C-alpha cells in the first residue's frame, strides 16, 4: 500500500471510531444514562486515539526505513568503492536508487542490479509490515479507547489534554527549526574546517574554489583558496550602498508621514510604500540586472569611468529601494510611539514643527531608529536574489562601487544550486559561509534588540 492510501485508511478508521463513540453515548443518553461529557468528546477521544499514534508510527517508519536500506545496501558495494568512500559511495547509492525507481542508464553493473533487487525486496516487506502494524495499531488503540467509554469516564478532560499536547508540540516547532538550522550547517562546517583551517577561511583574502577538480585529478592547476574576506567585503559594500539609499529616504518619509502628512495622504502613501516591500526579490534582481546595471554602466562610461557590467552600485541601489519601506515603517512606528506631550511641550516653548521633530522627537526615537537601521542592514546582508542576478561572481576584494563584487549569499547559491558532490571542500565551504551568515544576521538582530532594551525611554 502506498503512503497516501495508508493515510486515507487511517483517516477512515479515525472517523469510524469518532462516529462509533459519538453514537454509543448518544443512544445511551437517550435511554436516560448521564455521562460526564458531551457525546462529541467521547467520539473525539476514540477517534483521535485511533488516528494519532498510528500516524506518528507511520511517519517515523517511512523516514527510518529508507535510512536503513541506505546503510544495508552498502554490503553490496564492491570493496574499492567502500574504500574510496565519499562521493563514490554517493554515486553508487544514486545508481542503486535509479534501479529501484525503474530508471536504467545503459548497462548497470551486476552488483548494482543485485543491490537494486534486494532494495526492492526490502521495500516490499517493509511496506507490508508497515501497513499491517499501522492499521493494527489504529484499530487496537481505537478499540481500547472505545472500551473506556462509560458514564464516569471524563472524555472532555482527556480530549483537552490531547489538544494541549498538540498545542505544545506546535509551539516547539520554532525550536526544532532553529535546531535543524544549526545542525544542518554545523556538521558540514566542522567537516569543512577539517579540510581547510579556520584561520585560512576567516582571514583569507582569496576566494577561488573552482580548482577543486583539477587538484584532485593531480593535474596541478591553481590551488583552491577559501578565504571569506572578499565575499564579506562585497556584502558589506553592497549593504552599505543599500543603507545609504534607504536610510535617508526611508527616515525622511517616515518623519513626513508621521508629523506632516494629513491622515488621508498617510493612509494612501503608506500602503503604496509597502508595495515596494511586497515585490518579490527576483523581480528586483531582474530589474537591477536588466535596467539599472546597463544604465549605470552607460552613464559611468559617458563620464569616462570604467564600470563593470555587474557593478556593486546597481545591486546596492536596487536593494536600497527594496528596504526603504522596511526602514520607513519601523521608524514610523517608533516616531508614533513618542508621546504627544513631548511635542506639545516643545510647541509650548515656541518651537516650530521642524525644530520639535529634530530636537525632541527624533532624539527620543533614536534608539528605535538605530535598531530599525540595524535590522535593515541584517535584511540587506541576507538578501539573495538581487545579488545572485545583479552582482558578479568574481571575488574581488574591492571597495569601489563600480567594480563587480560578489557576496556571501550569491556564492552560497552558486555553489549549492544543481548537483553537487557532498564531500568536496567546495560544497562544504557553502555551509561554512552559511554559518558565518547566520552568525552575522543573528548578531545584528541581537544587537538591535539590546539597543532598544538599553536606551528605550519609559514614558508614563
Amino acid at each position: 500500500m502506498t503512503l497516501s492510501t495508508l493515510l486515507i485508511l487511517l483517516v477512515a478508521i479515525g472517523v469510524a471510531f469518532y462516529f462509533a463513540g459519538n453514537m454509543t453515548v448518544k443512544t445511551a443518553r437517550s435511554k436516560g444514562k448521564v455521562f460526564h461529557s458531551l457525546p462529541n468528546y467521547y467520539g473525539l477521544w476514540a477517534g483521535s486515539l485511533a488516528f494519532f499514534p498510528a500516524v506518528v508510527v507511520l511517519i517515523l517508519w517511512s523516514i527510518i526505513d529508507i535510512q536503513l536500506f541506505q546503510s544495508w545496501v552498502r554490503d553490496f558495494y564492491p570493496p574499492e568503492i567502500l574504500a574510496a568512500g565519499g562521493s563514490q559511495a554517493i554515486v553508487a547509492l544514486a545508481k542503486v536508487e535509479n534501479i529501484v525507481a525503474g530508471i536504467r542508464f545503459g548497462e548497470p553493473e551486476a552488483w548494482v542490479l543485485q543491490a537494486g533487487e534486494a532494495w526492492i525486496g526490502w521495500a516490499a516487506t517493509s511496506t507490508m509490515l508497515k501497513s499491517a502494524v499501522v492499521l493494527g495499531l489504529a484499530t487496537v488503540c481505537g478499540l481500547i479507547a472505545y472500551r473506556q467509554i462509560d458514564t464516569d469516564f471524563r472524555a472532555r478532560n482527556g480530549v483537552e489534554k490531547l489538544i494541549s499536547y498538540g498545542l505544545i508540540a506546535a509551539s516547539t516547532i520554532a525550536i526544532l527549526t532553529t535546531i535543524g538550522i544549526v545542525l544542518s550547517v554545523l556538521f558540514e562546517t566542522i567537516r569543512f574546517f577539517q579540510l581547510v583551517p579556520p584561520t585560512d577561511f576567516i582571514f583569507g583574502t582569496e576566494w577561488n574554489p573552482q580548482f577543486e577538480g583539477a587538484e584532485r585529478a593531480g593535474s596541478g592547476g591553481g590551488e583552491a583558496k577559501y578565504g571569506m574576506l572578499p565575499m564579506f567585503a562585497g556584502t558589506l559594500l553592497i549593504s552599505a550602498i543599500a543603507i545609504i539609499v534607504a536610510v535617508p529616504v526611508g527616515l525622511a518619509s517616515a518623519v513626513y508621514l508621521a508629523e506632516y502628512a494629513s491622515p488621508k495622504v498617510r493612509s494612501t502613501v503608506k500602503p503604496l510604500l509597502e508595495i515596494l516591500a511586497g515585490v518579490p526579490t527576483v523581480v528586483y534582481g531582474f530589474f537591477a540586472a536588466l535596467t539599472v546595471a546597463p544604465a549605470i554602466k552607460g552613464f559611468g562610461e559617458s563620464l569616462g569611468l570604467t564600470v563593470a557590467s555587474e557593478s556593486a552600485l546597481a545591486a546596492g541601489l536596487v536593494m536600497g529601494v527594496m528596504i526603504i519601506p522596511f526602514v520607513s515603517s519601523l521608524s514610523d512606528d517608533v516616531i508614533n510611539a513618542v508621546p504627544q506631550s513631548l511635542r506639545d511641550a516643545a510647541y509650548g516653548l515656541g518651537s516650530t514643527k521642524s525644530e520639535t521633530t529634530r530636537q525632541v522627537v527624533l532624539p527620543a526615537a533614536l534608539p528605535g531608529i538605530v535598531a530599525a537601521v540595524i535590522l535593515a542592514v541584517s535584511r540587506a546582508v541576507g538578501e539573495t536574489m538581487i545579488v545572485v542576478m545583479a552582482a558578479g561572481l568574481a571575488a574581488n576584494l574591492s571597495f569601489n562601487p563600480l567594480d563587480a563584487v560578489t557576496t556571501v549569499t550569491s556564492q552560497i547559491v552558486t555553489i549549492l544550486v544543481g548537483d553537487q558532490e557532498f564531500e568536496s571542500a567546495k560544497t562544504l565551504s557553502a555551509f561554512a559561509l552559511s554559518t558565518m551568515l547566520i552568525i552575522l544576521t543573528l548578531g545584528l538582530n541581537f544587537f538591535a534588540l539590546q539597543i532598544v532594551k538599553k536606551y528605550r525611554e519609559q514614558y508614563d
Partner: protein
Amino acid sequence: MTNKAFKGLSPQEATARVEASLKQRRKKEKRFRLMGLSAVVLALTFLVILFSGILTKGLPGMFQHYVQLDVVLDKARLDPQGDMSDASLFSGDADKIILEASLASIGEEGGRKTKKTLRKMVSSGGSQRLIEFVKANPELMGTTQTIKFAVDDDIDSFLRGFIKRETAEKDRRINDFTIEIVDKWQEAGLISYELSDYLFFGSASRDAEMAGIKGALFGSLLTLAICVSIAFPLGVAAAVYLEEIAPKNRWTEMIEININNLAAVPSVVFGIMGLAIFIVTFGMPRSIPLVGGIVLALMTLPTIIISSRAAIRAVPPSIRDAALGIGASKMQTIFHHVLPLAMPGMLTGTIIGMAQALGETAPLLMIGMVAFIVDIPGGFTDPATVLPVQIFMWADFAERMFIQKTSAAIIVLLAFLITMNAAAIMLRKKLERRW
C-alpha cells in the same frame, strides 16, 4: 534666565530678536518639510519606475506574432497508423505538412534554400499544435483548414522592430531572404499579433516563442497548498499556546526568542536547512513541491505566529471571562469564543505570509526546484518549478524575446501578489471588529 544672549535685554529687544530670527526659522521649517515630501515622492518614483519598466516590457510579452497557414489535413500522412493515437500522430508527417503549407502561402514550389528558411520561420512547436488541432477536431481530417502558428522568436523580434531591416545582413540574426518572405506574408495579411496562448498554456521551453508559465504556475499552487496546510494550523496552534496557555517560564521565553530569531534568518538559510535535512538526511527527492512547501512553511511560520498572537491579544478579556463564567472549560473558551473572534486577523496574517512564500526564490533554488521541467506537475511529489524560479531561469536566457516573456511572467506573479494582499486588506476591513 541664565542664557547669556538674553542677559540684559529688555522684553522689547528680546521680541525683536525673536522676530528677526523668525524668517530664518520659517524658511528652515519649509525646507525640512520639503525634504520629507521629496523623500516620499522619491520613494514613490522608484515604485513608478519599477512598475512602468516591467509593464512596458511585459505587456508586449503577453502578445506574439502568428502566421496563418492553410494546412491540408491529409489523414494518411498525419496519422499513418490510422488510430489517432499519440504515437501514430507523432510519427506522422506534421512537420512536412506545415512546411508545404508555408510554401503554398508564398506561392512557391521552393528550392532547398526556401525550404530551409521556411522551416526555421515557423515555431518548432508548430507540429505539436497541428497534432493537437487534429486531435480536438478529428472530423476535419481530409479538409483544408486555416491554422495559426507561432512564428519563430527571431521573426517575432524582427516584426517588433528589435531586429532592424537597415542593419547589415551579416550583423542580423535573420537574412534578407527571410525578410522577403516575411514581407510576402505581411502583404498577404497572414501575420497577426495577438494574445500569446503559449504564455499561459505552454510549459518551460528553450524556444522563447513557445515558453509558458503553466507548469510553473501549477508548481507554485501545489507548493503553496503544502505550505498553507502546514503553516496555518501550526502557526495558529503555536500562537494559541503562547498567548492563552503557556506559563511564563524559561521554556516559553526560549520559544519566543526562537520565533523572533527565525523571523530574522535570511530565507536562503531555510533552503540550506531543507537541503541538508529533507533531501540529504531524509532522502526525499529534489525539486518536489512537498519539500518546497515544507521549507516555505517553516520560513513563513514566524510571520503567521506573530500576527496570530496579535489577533488573539486583540480579543478583549471580557469575552474569556464571560465564557469561563458560564462554565466553559479553558479549551472550550479558546476554541468556541477566542479563536472565531481572532480568525480574521489570523487569516490576514496567513495571506500575507503566503504572498511572501509565493514570491520567494532563494530557498527553492537550494532544494533543486530550479530544474528544467517540461511536464506539468500532477502531484506533490512530481518534479516542479515555481513562478519566481521560472522568472529567475528565464532572466538568464540571452534571447531578446525572453526578456519580454520574463516581464510578462513577472506581471502575472505581481498580479497574484497584489490580489492576495488586496484580499488580506479587504478581509481585515470587512471582519475587523472594534471593541
